[in-house]
Each structure stands twice: as structure tokens, then as C-alpha cells.
């Protein structure tokens, strides 16, 4: 009889223990972090909307994928941008609104906080652009390159393709067909795929 009661207590204790463990697991189970995007904008009092809903200058919780960000402020031209938000990534979008009225023409010089914030946004945007350029066209990390005997110069610059303005183009400055062929051969020899880069040929003897 006593043995039966002891067993019963053990069962109850075991059951309570299992329930306790389940509760602890559910409480401390780490939920996957929701994706966020940090929006920086000047003037600092600008209004932000994300997919038509009110957002903030600062960190916003959003859905992963494409989102439409609209930043506006009275006296400034509204900016709209489609951004891609990735889970577990640092998502950032910076906006510097430009004045479109006489009343705000000297806004940044008269508002030092906005001016400082604008410099910070511009600097960060520049860093992001540089990183994206390297990702899109990795060869730019080893440019400029001068061919043997200054036969050709391989460098990078603005992409003239209207559909790829954010991807740098490769500029080959060479004076002869052989030099152009040698420059292409050099790019191939470094393991880069010619089909993926916009190549612009120039013939300028002064920049060789």
C-alpha cells in the first residue's frame, strides 16, 4: 500500500516536472527576430511612411522583402524608395531631402543638427555604395591596372547603361586592337567573367 502511494507520488512529481520543463521551454524559447530597418532622414522632423503606414526616423519593424519608404517634409521634395529588407541583416536607408521652396532654401545652414545628420547619412550612403559596387563588380578591388609597357589601362567608372547605373563599368583605355584584346585577356586571366561587366573602351593616350 505504502509502495503504491510512493509510486503515485513519483508519477505526480514526474508529471509536474515535465509540465514545468515544457513551460520553461515555451517561455525561454527564442522567437526568431523580426526584421527591422533603420531609417535615417533629414530634416530630422521628416515624416516617414512604410508601405503606406506611419514609420519613424529610427528603427522600424517590418516584413522581410520589398518595402516602399516615403519620406516627406513641408518645403522639401518628397523621396520614395523601394528597399529590400532581409531577416538577420542590417537594413538601412538614408534620406536627405532637398528644399523645394524659398522658405526652406537655407534650412541646413540654419539648423546645425540637421546639417550634422545629413553629413552622417551621406557618409554612410557612400560606404554602402562602395560595398555594393565591390559585390557587383569584384574586379574593381584590383583596379586600376596598367598593362605591361603601358599598353593599356583598366579602371572603373560610371556605368553608361541606363539599367545598371549603380553598377560600375570597367573602362579599358587602349590605343590598338591588340592592346584591347590583351586587356580583355588580362581580365579573363584573373578569373572574372566578361559577360557580367559593362566594358567601355576609350582611346586616350594622355591617360595611359
Amino acid at each position: 500500500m505504502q509502495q503504491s502511494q510512493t509510486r503515485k507520488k513519483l508519477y505526480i512529481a514526474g508529471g509536474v516536472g515535465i509540465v514545468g520543463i515544457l513551460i520553461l521551454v515555451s517561455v525561454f524559447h527564442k522567437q526568431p527576430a523580426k526584421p527591422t530597418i533603420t531609417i535615417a532622414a533629414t530634416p530630422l522632423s521628416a515624416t516617414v511612411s512604410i508601405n503606406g503606414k506611419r514609420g519613424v526616423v529610427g528603427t522600424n519593424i517590418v516584413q522581410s522583402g520589398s518595402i516602399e519608404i516615403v519620406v516627406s517634409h513641408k518645403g522639401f521634395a518628397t523621396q520614395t524608395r523601394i528597399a529590400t529588407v532581409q531577416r538577420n541583416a542590417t537594413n538601412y536607408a538614408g534620406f536627405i531631402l532637398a528644399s523645394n521652396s524659398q522658405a526652406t532654401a537655407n534650412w541646413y545652414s540654419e539648423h546645425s543638427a540637421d546639417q550634422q545628420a545629413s553629413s552622417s547619412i551621406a557618409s554612410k550612403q557612400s560606404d554602402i555604395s562602395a560595398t555594393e559596387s565591390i559585390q557587383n563588380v569584384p574586379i574593381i578591388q584590383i583596379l586600376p591596372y596598367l598593362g605591361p609597357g603601358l599598353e593599356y589601362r583598366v579602371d572603373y567608372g560610371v556605368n553608361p547603361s541606363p539599367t545598371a547605373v549603380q553598377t560600375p563599368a570597367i573602362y579599358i583605355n587602349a590605343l590598338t586592337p591588340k592592346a584591347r584584346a590583351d586587356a580583355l585577356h588580362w581580365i579573363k586571366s584573373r578569373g572574372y567573367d566578361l559577360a557580367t561587366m559593362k566594358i567601355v573602351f576609350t582611346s586616350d593616350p594622355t591617360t595611359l
Partner: protein
Amino acid sequence: MVRLIIILTPLVLLSIGGVAMWQHYVVDKIVTLRAAAGTSITLGKPFGPGNNAGVLGDTILQTNSQAKIRLSPGSYILVFSGADYAAQTQKITVSSNNLTLSTPSLNYSAQKLDSLLADEKPAIQTVVSGINSLSGYTTSYESLYGAGDWYAAKLAPPDPTTQDVLRVVLHKENGVWQVAATPTLILYSGDYKSIPVAVVRDIDNS
């Protein structure tokens, strides 16, 4: 005790049978394979750890017509192939629905494309020689691609000291060869989105 075993044994067997039936008819899904004429479909498990390699491992089924099979949820590899075609691999995931898979549009094999090129050459040559800027140029490399409807060539100039090597791409539409990329030193796939990247890559890097 014996009576208990006699009662429990059929129950256990029924339970095992029930689970097996549930697995077969509820969890497993019907996958229908439809191979186009002259092609076959091979279905198998992915090769290698992680099941992400996209390489066929053990073959489960092969058909050159139509076949149905019940598969448990998971990843599988399909290989579409044929005597005249380049094999194409596709990874599929069986989950909550039945699937029907047919042979996609396959690219011809290199051998088939070579034999087609011999037949198509006169028509292609007529188009290429009609391009004004190519007077005196000779073909140094050429190939057909895909279903034999893309052609690209590398053209050597008559005077390499003053003229560049050029690349040209033609596409066959409604049975007629047309210039898809006019002669140029190098092609950028971003500028020629209608041309398959494989064609641009091959002719640029040839």
C-alpha cells in the same frame, strides 16, 4: 498473462498496420512523371550530405513515358535527359500536395548542335555577311546554343593591327535568323537581356 498477450498482440499489429497505412495514404504523396517523346526522366534521392548538392544519388524510378509513384515528404532530384539533349537536373520538394512533373524545354546536346550548325550554316552566313561592318572578317569561333535557335560567333578582322576582333549573336525566330547583337568587341549580359546569359558568357570568354 497469456491472455493479456493474446489481447495485446493483435492490437499492436493493428496499430503498426494503421501507422503504415496512414504513412502510405496520407503522408506519402503521388508524384506523376511525364517524359516527352525522345526523353527520359530519372527520379532519385539527392546525393551527399545536407541534400543540397543537386546531384542525383540512388535512383528510385526511371521512365521514358509516364509513371506514378508515392513518395514520402522530402527532397528529390529529377534528371531529364535524351539522346539529342543535354541533361537537365531539377530539385523538387515533396510536402503536402501531389505533384505532376513534365519534361521541360531541354537544350540540345553539343553533338546535336554541331550537326545542326552544319545545316544552318548557309542561312546564318547569309545574315552575317549582310552586315556591312564585317567586310573581310572571317569566323574564328562559332556555336549554336539552346534548342539550336541561338548562334554566336567570334569574328577575326582582315587587318588585326587596325581592326578589332568582334562578336555577333543571331537568333532564329519563326524559322528566320536575325541579328540579336550587332558586331561588338564584347557583350554585357545586362545590355542584352533577351539573349541567354550562357550564350553571352560563352562568346565573351571564347
